[in-house]
């Protein structure tokens, strides 16, 4: 057990920090489009510095970073108060999935523009009637000559309006059981058949979108991993979903907590034992999250498969983030209930934490069945 960074990890971190010193991310402009364009530029700068796809193999322009280094990257990104690169879904999900299942032509065609943010990716998995139940999705793909013609609706698609490509899972065979008839497509977003409608969240922001797909065409060569193999390919995408990102979220939580403690200190509230008790509690939870995330990395690096820790960090993070936001509202009163205040935003935004990327209920199912080996109830699923 050695909870300091190894020499090579420390060197990686120092190199990155040095790069951040020179390449100050600056301040993101307001306005969705401006912010997005800025994040795209930011990714280009990262890519130029060789920092965009740190966990990608060198042959694809990455740094071949270990899991820990990848975690360090996101920790440092958070510490530098830099935003996520614009094409985060391409870097974390589409890229690794294409590396795993793509043909040589597909790798050649898609990977490089992901890295440079020249082509942004979005994810078309969720559907209105298949929230937690991927296998129940209804979007259909029908073969027509060399193309597939796709019809259906997707939801919770973030960044769709900026995306060139969509990781789309659709049903290609209606005659086989639910998860068997699925195929994974790389769908061009720039076509008539794809309409995007912003989906406004309770924060008032349109962070996600709905996709209305009506006769969109995808050539056969854009099938990833083979027809009928979509379930397996999609699982690969989902497995990659929050490997490194967990550290970004964890650092962001830590920053929020530190800022709240500072704010409490400025208001002279730290001397209130009830406040102190709660701060001690939240600090404990934040540290447990951080440490458990690192334990999870050790397990993956050593054994190649995630241990129980990996399935717990999303749950820990979302719960703690909600508790933190609620405590901030208690502590700061009217300020934290006024639109424009960051805590007011967190109080709303954090409610999504236990829903997005797998509800806490589904995560508990997964922990119970896959980690603890508990039997599945008839009619229920994870």
């Amino acid at each position, binding site marked *: 057990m050695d909870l300091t960074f190894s020499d090579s990890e420390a060197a990686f971190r120092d190199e990155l920090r040095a790069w951040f010193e020179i390449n100050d991310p600056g301040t993101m402009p307001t306005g969705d489009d401006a912010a997005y364009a800025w994040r795209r530029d930011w990714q280009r700068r990262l890519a130029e510095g060789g920092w965009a796809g740190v966990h990608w193999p060198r042959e694809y322009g990455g740094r071949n970073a270990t899991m820990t280094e990848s975690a360090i990257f996101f920790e440092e990104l958070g510490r530098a108060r830099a935003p996520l690169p614009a094409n985060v879904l391409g870097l974390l999900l589409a890229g690794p999935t294409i590396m795993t299942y793509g043909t040589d032509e597909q790798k050649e065609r898609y990977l490089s523009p992901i890295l440079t943010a020249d082509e942004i990716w979005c994810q078309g998995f*969720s559907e209105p*009637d*298949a*929230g*937690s*139940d991927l296998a*129940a999705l209804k979007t259909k793909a029908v073969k027509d000559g060399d193309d597939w013609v796709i019809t259906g609706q997707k*939801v*919770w698609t973030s960044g769709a309006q900026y995306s060139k490509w969509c990781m789309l899972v659709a049903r290609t065979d209606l005659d086989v059981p639910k998860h068997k008839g699925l195929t994974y497509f790389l769908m061009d977003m720039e076509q008539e058949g794809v309409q995007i409608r912003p*989906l*406004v*969240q*309770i924060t*008032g922001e349109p962070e996600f979108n709905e996709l209305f797909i009506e006769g969109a065409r995808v050539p056969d060569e854009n099938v990833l991993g083979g027809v009928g193999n979509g379930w397996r390919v999609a699982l690969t995408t989902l497995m990659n979903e929050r490997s490194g990102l967990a550290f970004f979220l964890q650092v962001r939580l830590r920053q929020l907590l530190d800022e709240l403690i500072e704010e409490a200190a400025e208001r002279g509230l730290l001397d209130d034992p*009830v406040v102190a008790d709660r701060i001690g509690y939240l600090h404990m939870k934040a540290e447990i999250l951080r440490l458990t995330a690192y334990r999870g990395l050790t397990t993956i690096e050593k054994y190649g498969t995630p241990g129980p820790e990996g399935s717990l960090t999303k749950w820990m993070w979302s719960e703690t983030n*909600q508790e933190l936001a*609620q405590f901030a*509202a*208690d502590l700061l*009163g*009217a300020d934290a*209930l*006024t*639109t*424009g205040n960051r805590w*007011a935003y967190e*109080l*709303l935004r954090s*409610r*999504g934490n*236990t*829903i*997005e990327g797998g*509800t*806490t*209920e589904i995560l*508990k*199912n997964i922990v119970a069945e896959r980690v603890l080996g508990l039997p599945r109830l008839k*009619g*229920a*699923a994870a």
Partner: protein
Amino acid sequence: MNFDFTEDQQEIKKTARDLLSSRSSLAKVREAAEGKAYDPALWSELVELGWPGIAIAEEHGGQGLGAVELAILSEELGYALAASPFLATVTAAEAIGIAGTPEQQAQWLPLLASGEATGTIGSAGGLVPDADAAAVIVLIGEDGVARVLARAEAEVTPVDSIDPTRRAARVYAPPTHGEALGGDSAAAIDRATVVVAAELVGVAQRALEMTLAYVKDRRQFDTPVGAYQAVSHKCAQMLKDTEGARSATYFAAWAADAEPDRLPEAASLAKAAASDGGRDVTASAIQAHGGIGFTWEADVHWLYKRAQVDAALLGGSGTHRARLARLLAARLQPAAA
């Protein structure tokens, strides 16, 4: 010992439920919230029904009913999530009605009862609901003493709270402005507090019902999601929180008139229970709705936002728990009380 409403009270509840379900549907609430403007027709109608004056003495033009009737209405307005200065106005009337000087009462209560003017009560450091349009503001100082201010005597800065179904403002007034309430500020605040608790109970009830309807209908893995214990037990918890808050709130409303000696404790019980319950139940409602619950399009977020702001009005649950402990300690050492 009878917790049931009288027939008259049940009639008030039913009238309110019926009226508000058409006049203040969630579509209308959304309209008001998104348009940042109350529906004046709704307010006129409430005024015509005499609701703002329901608990104001008849001599001041009110209906002379009590805190229980007011709680019933407040609960229903919370259930409807009505966008209206009702809560602000009746809480001001409660405060002035119990603790105002005869002059303060004569000056303000008839105006509030008739709906000619609206009022509000709030803390100097907090969000004050509907202060921008209020003719009279009861402002609670750091010392717990409440002053009565005419609108012109106060600096009112409207702010957008996270709850767009209700207007809010920050209020400041120099110490020389306004006039202290003649009577017991604590009693005035307690009566107003019960009204807020009642609204929270209504909000929680609505969140529970919306959630039940949703989870009975929504299917995942070929099963209504409400059949899963992860969801059904959450709903059971929502019922428990809602009913617990309701028990405490009805008790406080009853005590306000029938046993005012018990009001300090009862009001804090009610507000602590309703603040916690309202927040937890509406948060659970969002969660049980899944992704849909996190969208602006669904209505469940209005309830969460109202509950969050109401929970902070006139003291959050922590403040009231601390007060309950003080009251209990004082009972042990009456001399120190």
